[in-house]
Structures are given as structure tokens and as C-alpha cells.
């Protein structure tokens, strides 16, 4: 029997303990392959959090994860499990590339809004088909979005190789974007450049991501649309009773979700690589799932979880650079975090339930 936990325990304690469990198992894995967990942690912390350089990367990754985390979050509130953020982010990258390459942009302030529209449109379009199939034909969105991830990657390979690759270039990538599309990095922003004294990949997209957190929060809890999305996500039957159109909510929620996932491309494609590469999203769509889960599907939580995963990602990269621990440790840790926060959370709750049950009589 499930013991009901106090809300604070559910919101704070459960993710925290899940995280600790994931860390514990990761440490066991490290010990098993003959590495020192404390050494690994030290490298990760130093590489990701101690220097402005580390923060530059941690924030860069976090920016991407905020977008995909929010994408998963808004779909989740509509009762839809969007596993397709990865494919949507890839298509978003295509949108960014097409916009950036279309014109000799004079200044980034002009290119950025246009690229955002491109990213959001392409991401949303890629979410639209699974959404439509779910809304109209009841095709399970989890499976269709998985399929669409693969279709996206095949499509992108085709476009990069056959269409966007400039003559004479060997790697499957688009041409470099014109100089006028270069987004200022934190190093180039007055004020912040005092902290970030060297070139870092984190760029103005970070502020767009923060704004997106606020916007998504406002949509979900302050607008009729958000109200309808949440109601529909809790009970489709009741939503129908209240005159909320399942098709409309499913479509809109997924379109927003896809647009958010697509917007991630502003960060990595426009802000960092400045050209479209194959598999540019690098699994950030999947990490979005973990970020949303950890963040309890709340924009503030997503922000914090994105920072955590940004740390994991950057710290993991540093492990790959400076230790003999393969970078794949990062994937293992991510998997464990998802496992413990998303699938074994009930186990944590049960454990806590026992604690709270034994504690209560003493307190009374």
C-alpha cells in the first residue's frame, strides 16, 4: 500500500534520494572498473563548475536541456509522452540552417528572430504528424515519435549529403553560416565578459531559454490554454465534458513541444557550431525526458535539472579528456538518473513511506 507522503517530501526528497541512489550506483560502477569515484567527482566538479570556462560549457549544455526539458514538460501536462524531442531538435536545426543560409544577414539581432521562427516551425512540423495521428487515429505517440526520430535522422543525412553540403566539402555538414548570424557568447556580452574572459560556447540563447521557462510557466498556469492542457492531461473524459477539444489540445501541446525542441537548435547550431552538422542534437532530446522527470514537470524544476544535467554532461566530457574513464560513464549516469527518478521513484516513495510512518508516532 502506498503511503501518502507530505508534498515537500514528494517534491524535494524523492528526486534528491533518487539522485543519490543513481550517484551511488554510478560510484559502484566506477569501483567495478577499477576507478576512483571521488577522483571522478573531483574532475567533474573542477571541469564543470570551478572555472568560468567550465560554467561556459555547463551553461551551454544546460541551455539545450532547458528547451528539450520544457518540450517534454508541456507535452507531459497534456498527457502525452514526447520521446520525439530528439528528432524535433534535429529538424529545428534544419530550420535554423535554412534561415541562416538564405540571406546574407547583416546583424545577429535580425537573424536571431528569423532563425527562431525557422527552428520553431520545423520542430513543430515534425511533432505535428505524430500529434495528428494521436489525436485523430489514436496511434500511440510514444511509438510514432520514436519512429520519427529515426526518420528525422535519415532525412537529415539525405539533406546534408545531397542538398546542403557545399561542393568540395567532405564531411556531411552545411556551409558555415554568414558572419552576420553569429550570436554573442557570454564572453562577448558587456558585463558578463568580466566573468567569462575567454571564448565559451554559452551564448545569448541562454536568456531565451530562461524566458521560455517563464513563458511556459505562464502558459501552463495562467492561461486558458494551459488550463485546458492540464485538464486534458489529467482526464480526457472530463476534458471532453468541459468542452475542451482533445484534438485541439493534443495538437497545440505537441506543436508547442515540438517548437521548443526545435528552438534548442538556436543554441547548438546557430550559437555554437555555426553550421548544421549531422546529429547535432547529440541526444539532448532524450536528456530532455530526464530533465523533465527530475524537474517534476515544472519549469523551475526543469531549469534546475537542466543545470544538473549540464554539469553531468560537461563534467563527463572532462572525464573523457583528463582521465582514463571512458566518456560513456556519462551515458551510464544519465541512464541511472532516469531510471531512479522516473521508473523507480515508487520504490523511493515506499522507502520514504516507511520512514514517515515510523516517524509520525514519535512526533505526535
Amino acid at each position, binding site marked *: 500500500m502506498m503511503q501518502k507522503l507530505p508534498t515537500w517530501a514528494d517534491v524535494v526528497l524523492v528526486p534528491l534520494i533518487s539522485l543519490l541512489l543513481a550517484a551511488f550506483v554510478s560510484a559502484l560502477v566506477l569501483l567495478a572498473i577499477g576507478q576512483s569515484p571521488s577522483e571522478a567527482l573531483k574532475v567533474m566538479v573542477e571541469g564543470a563548475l570551478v572555472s568560468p570556462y567550465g560554467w561556459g560549457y555547463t551553461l551551454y549544455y544546460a541551455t539545450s536541456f532547458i528547451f528539450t526539458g520544457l518540450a517534454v514538460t508541456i507535452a507531459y501536462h497534456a498527457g502525452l509522452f514526447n520521446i520525439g524531442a530528439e528528432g524535433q531538435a534535429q529538424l529545428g536545426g534544419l530550420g535554423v540552417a535554412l534561415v541562416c543560409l538564405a540571406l546574407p544577414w547583416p546583424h545577429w539581432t535580425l537573424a536571431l528572430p528569423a532563425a527562431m521562427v525557422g527552428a520553431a516551425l520545423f520542430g513543430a512540423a515534425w511533432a505535428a504528424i505524430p500529434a495528428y495521428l494521436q489525436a485523430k487515429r489514436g496511434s500511440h505517440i510514444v511509438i510514432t515519435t520514436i519512429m520519427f526520430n529515426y526518420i528525422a535522422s535519415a532525412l537529415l543525412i539525405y539533406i546534408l549529403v545531397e542538398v546542403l553540403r557545399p561542393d568540395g566539402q567532405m564531411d556531411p555538414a552545411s556551409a558555415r553560416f554568414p558572419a552576420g548570424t553569429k550570436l554573442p557568447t557570454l564572453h562577448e556580452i558587456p558585463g558578463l565578459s568580466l566573468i567569462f574572459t575567454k571564448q565559451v560556447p554559452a551564448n545569448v540563447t541562454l536568456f531565451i531559454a530562461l524566458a521560455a521557462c517563464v513563458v511556459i510557466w505562464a502558459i501552463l498556469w495562467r492561461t486558458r490554454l494551459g*488550463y485546458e492542457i492540464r485538464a486534458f492531461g489529467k*482526464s480526457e473524459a472530463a476534458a471532453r465534458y468541459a468542452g475542451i477539444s482533445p484534438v485541439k489540445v493534443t495538437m497545440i501541446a505537441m506543436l508547442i513541444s515540438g517548437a521548443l525542441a526545435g528552438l534548442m537548435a538556436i543554441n547548438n547550431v546557430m550559437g555554437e557550431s555555426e553550421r548544421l552538422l549531422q546529429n547535432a542534437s547529440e541526444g539532448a532530446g532524450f536528456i530532455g525526458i530526464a530533465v523533465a522527470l527530475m524537474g517534476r514537470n515544472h519549469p523551475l524544476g526543469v531549469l534546475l535539472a537542466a543545470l544538473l544535467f549540464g554539469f553531468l554532461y560537461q563534467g563527463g566530457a572532462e572525464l573523457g579528456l583528463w582521465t582514463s574513464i571512458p566518456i560513456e560513464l556519462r551515458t551510464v549516469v544519465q541512464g541511472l538518473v532516469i531510471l531512479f527518478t522516473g521508473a523507480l521513484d515508487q520504490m523511493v516513495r515506499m522507502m520514504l513511506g516507511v520512514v514517515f510512518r515510523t516517524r509520525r508516532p514519535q512526533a505526535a
Partner: protein
Amino acid sequence: MQGQGTLGRQASAAPFAIELRGISKAFGPVQANKDISIQVAKGSIHGIIGENGAGKSTLMSILYGFYKADSGEILIDGKPTTIPDSQSAIRAGIGMVFQHFKLVQNFTVLENVILGAEEGAMLAPSLSKARKVLGDLAREYELDVDPDALIEDLSVGHQQRVEILKALYRQADILILDEPTGVLTPAEADHLFRILNGLKDQGKTIILITHKLREIMEITDMVSVMRRGQMVATVTTAQTSPEELAELMVGRKVLLHVHKDPATPGAAVLEVENLRVVDDQKVERLRGISLTVRAGEILGIAGVAGNGQSELLEVLGGIAKGSGTIRLNGKELDLTGKFSDGRSRRADGIAHVPEDRQVLGLIMDFSAWENVAFGYHHAPEYQKNALFMDNDAIRADTEKKMATFDVRPPIPTLAAKNFSGGNQQKIVVAREIERNPDLLLIGQPTRGVDIGAIEFIHKQIVALRDQGKAILLVSVELDEIMSLSDRIAVMFDGRIMGERDPATTNERELGLLMAGVGGESA
């Protein structure tokens, strides 16, 4: 108390088929069963009654090993028996027909019957044996079903037979039936009772859970009454009366009739002509309904559950699509297109208290204030500006409505799931009635609601009528229909069988119509 009578028999007669001692069971914070003891004599039909949520199903599920009791003991034929799972219950000779059938929809009857009672690792021998046994049982007890039919193609009545066959195939001596007649027409119910009497004559023991006092009086030997998780009495049926049972059930004298003045009907508000609804499985659930509700009157729709009442409410409320014509105050409503949704209906002046508040009427995880805006979240007074909702305004409105309807506790931020059923219903009724609609659709207004709330809700309905509003009331409780309605229409199999004046009709006449016997319309 008459309950002592049973104890008196203990010394002389054979051991009880079943004896439960001190059974308790909690689901989290809900104490579903509290220290329950009951004895059931061998070869008898023992009734159990109680309001919704009294704990009847829980108790029987414990006996069947589906749930584990927190404490207490079970004696079968006088021997203490532990029933940790259903397998043990089956071994102890207990069979149970659940309130919600436990059948595999896309299996055949035969496959469902042998499931869990196979003869060996191979299916073939089990199937041929079951085919033969089923033939025998069918002859013996009038339990015909096609052994090769898929469950999903069978009517509920037949599905129930499969459940009974399952139990008999496992050679159950003790048969538990949980509200078996809720889904049956009176004729099917009579058939069932013949079967039960036949089984009783064979020496089998039967426990029957039902809400219907008539059935208790008709078929049981003894009856136990439960209230709020406790066993309040066990009496010999012959020595009690429906009134006494009702009083035991709710814990105080029941008001049989609602006080109301005669109706003064005005112009027709709702006119329905030849309304048809086809469900997802392509089954026609409404087969040409025509009816009229006028201002200032309550039209009651009586009928056994599942005869199209839900579909009628849903199509009127904009949840389901249909064909035919519906006019509200003379204006024809959209039945299939863009405006055939709940939002349009509300805009047209139709309020709807749905039959199932937990599934339709409320979002259980939403707070009370969010639920008060539910369906009316587009209302201008709930908006701050073009973009944002005015949550403060909704909370203020909620406080007001909670005060008017005496919702307890009056905390707008409390989640709906944390209110009791009666208070949940009050929130829904408050939300819909306070909108001052021209037409109120109200389904099962008092299902699972305690008696105080029943009276209150009934009064609100009558008050709305007296303001000159039209009300369409659907209820499976004949008493409620009889006491509230100004006119009664009886539904059977998607049709209106006839209309009666509550002043001149009686339960017997309505019961016949509900069974599809002797209606005037086809």
C-alpha cells in the same frame, strides 16, 4: 436486535458455511472494513446491503482472497482457513462474480472458463473437458452461452452467465455475487434469481450484494447491513421490512419524499426529435428519442442502467455526437459539427451535472477553485485580460459558492480528490446551478451521497425548477425519480417506452416499462 437470532442458531445447526471474525481492511487513509463479523448458514441465500462505499465489495474481495485483510479470521465450514490469494479461495470452494466482470474480452467463453483451472500444461484436454461440463451446466441451470463466442460480442447478461459458469466450473459451493442485477433488465434479473434458487436447492451457499431492497426481500434468507465500513446488523429477511433496512443502512430515518409544490410548466425549452447516437463500436445506443422539457418542470428519465440514459445526457451535453434534432428555446443545436461540444452547449444555456462526477465532472487532481471554473474557464468574469485568466477572481467566486452550498471543508485550494463524495457532488452542482442555465441536465444527482447532502441537492433542484428552469433528471433510483419528477419517461434499449405521471403511476408499472414490456412507442 434481531441480529441475535443468528447467533442463537449457532449451537444447534451445522457449522456455518462461512464465518468472518473481526475483519478489518484499510486502503491508505480509508478504513473500508472495520472489525466485521458475519456468519452465513450453509445452503442459504445471504444478502448484504449498504450505501456506496460501505465496504461490501471489499469484504467479499477479502473472502475471495483478492485483497488481504489487515486483521481478522475466516472460517469455512467451521474450520479456520487462511485465504492469501484467490487460488486458496477457489480451493476452499468459493466462487465470486465481481461487480466489474473479470473477463478477457477477446477470449472465447471456453477460454475464459478454463483460465486458471486448466487440466494440464496443454490446452486441448482442458478445452474439450470444459466444453462438455459447460453443456451439462447449461442444461442443469438454464445457463446457455455459446462456448465459442468471444466475450466482447456478448451482452452483459450473458457475460454475467460466463462469470457464474466460471465459478460453477470450479465447483464452487459458495457463490458470491456483487451487485449482479445492476446491469440486468428486470427479466434478466428474474432469470438470475431462478438460477440462484436452483443453486440453493442443490445445497450451495450464496452471498448476494445488492442495493435493491426489493431483491433482498424477494430472494434472501438472511440479510446483513453495512454502513461506513462496519457491520451494523444481521437480520432474518422474513422478520424485517424495507423501511427498517433503509434506516439501518443510512443510520437514521429516511425521508421518502421531497416536499415540492405542483409544477407550473411554461414554454418548451428543450425539444428533442428522433435523436440517435451510435457508439464507437457502431452499436446504436439511442434509437430515435423524442421528448420535450418545458420551463419550470422536471422530466425524470427512469430505466435500468445502460439503456441509453448516459448517451442521452452526453449528446445533450455536447460530449457525444448524434443525429436527429435538438432545439433549445426554439433554436436548433449543432449535433455533429464544430459547435457540438460542451463549450457551445454551455454558451447556449445548458448546464450539465454528469452521472459520474469523478470521471467526468471533476478533475480530481485539480483544486476546488480550478474545478469551479471547469467548463466555464472561458467565462469573461474569470479573465484578467485577453491573455491571462484571473485566478483570484475564480478563487473568490469559489469561496462564495462553497458558502452557499455548504461545502466542507470550505478551502478553495484543496484538491477535489480530498473532498468526500457528497462534497464533491456539491461542488459540481454548485458550479452548474449557479450558472443559472435555461436547461439543467442532471444525472444520478445523489449517487453515493449521504442523506443530508441528498436532501440539500434535491432542494436545489426543486428551487431551480421553481425559478422557471427546465430540468432533465436521469436516475436509476426509482424513489428519486418518483419523488422529484413532474413527468416520468422510461427508457429501455435506447428508446422511450412511455411517459407516466408520478402521481398516478407506481413502481410496478414503471418496472414493467423498464423491462421493455408494454410500452406505447416503438
